[in-house]
């Protein structure tokens, strides 16, 4: 069984982003997708803190800390990009102008519910950021995550047990072991990693995958 590593996963997601798409990449793992966007496609990255046409990280020493992404890393602006305020930024999101949002997650349920903002532990300090807006605002929401937690529990679930971020909003889940399409309260396997069978995935997730 050959798991995709995190770079492979980012590459895999990037391959599915069409030219001309307006895309928001969530903080953490999804940020890596930017590194693998096909060079022959013009894709517009939006960052919730007010830029469209986000470019790659600057060379070390060239950082401008007033030009950052949602993860507060220094970035650059592509030719043709622009700046705007937070109101307009979230209008882009909530108003359905973003074609695709890629998020990390603690759990995704087969009905498309996503939990990615809070572990629910009583002593945890909650922080939501733009996660709830991103989850429900884009035309399509993709999740990228390892399929299993470190102790082997599936993060693709029948029903989320962690506090929800958004309801019935995820349409596809990219993992290290398979890619799942969520439709009509079912998860359909649309791609498997090398040496991973349908039965393996059913066993790992405990779900009636089709």
């Amino acid at each position: 069984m050959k798991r995709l590593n995190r770079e492979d996963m980012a590459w895999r997601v990037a391959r599915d982003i069409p030219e001309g798409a307006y895309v928001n990449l969530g903080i953490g793992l999804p940020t890596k997708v930017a590194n693998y966007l096909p060079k022959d496609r013009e894709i517009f990255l939006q960052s919730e803190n007010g830029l469209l046409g986000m470019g790659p990280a600057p060379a070390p020493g060239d950082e401008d800390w007033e030009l950052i992404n949602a993860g507060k890393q220094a970035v650059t602006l592509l030719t043709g990009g622009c700046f705007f305020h937070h109101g307009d930024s979230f209008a882009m999101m909530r108003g359905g102008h973003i074609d695709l949002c890629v998020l990390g997650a603690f759990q995704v349920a087969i009905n498309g519910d996503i939990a990615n903002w809070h572990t629910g532990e009583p002593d945890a300090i909650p922080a939501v950021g733009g996660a709830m807006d991103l989850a429900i605002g884009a035309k399509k929401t993709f999740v990228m995550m390892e399929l299993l937690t470190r102790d082997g529990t599936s993060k693709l679930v029948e029903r989320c047990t962690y506090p929800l971020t958004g309801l019935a909003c995820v349409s596809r889940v990219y993992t290290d072991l398979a890619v799942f399409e969520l439709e009509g309260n079912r998860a359909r396997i649309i791609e498997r990693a090398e040496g991973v069978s349908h039965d393996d995935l059913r066993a790992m997730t405990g779900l009636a995958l089709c």
Partner: protein
Amino acid sequence: MIDKTVASAEAAVADIHDGASVMIGGFGTAGMPDELIDALIALEVGNLTIINNNAGNGETGVAALIREGRVRKIICSFPRQADSHHFDARYRAGEIELELVPQGNLAARIQAAGAGLGAIFTPTGFGTQLAEGKETRTIDGVDHVLEYPIRADFALIKAHEGDRWGNLVYRKTARNFGPIMAMAARTTIAQVARVVPLGNLDPEVVVTPGIFVQRVVPIGSHSIGSTAA
């Protein structure tokens, strides 16, 4: 390569269909996308719902669209003007439906659509005829009316300069409804005086980011400063 420019107004509006809802920018004639409207008239589709601040001035733009009988309903704030005779005649003949909206509510409802809000409580219009039958609520001692978003299939707007990604800047008070309508329509078509190379528009001064614009049509600047009635 993404290039949102379209060579002609005719090509840009070609998929506007019978019964479509169409936002049209402009306050009076300032910011009115005359050439796009002319192309829409030439298209010969009807039963349109038009969202514009006014209901046409003189013989051009929205007035011409109404004159030609293409408008089933108009949503606007200020239809009656000295030169709104085409609207006046069709309205009096019962040939056009009017939804009269206070100008600020018109703007706020268009903005609500663009921003994905489901409804807004606005104080404007409370207790007046224009709020009759609408849900109201007193919030913090102020009376409000519940108003819903105004969306559209298309927005036709006029900007000053645009680029192939759809970024736009405007000119003086011709800006008016352009930026907010661009956000509220499924397909926004902007006519511009000129298309400039990508990067020519300073990223700090872009008023409408390209994400809100689907088509950009270079028209030339002949109509700037000469659109008065």
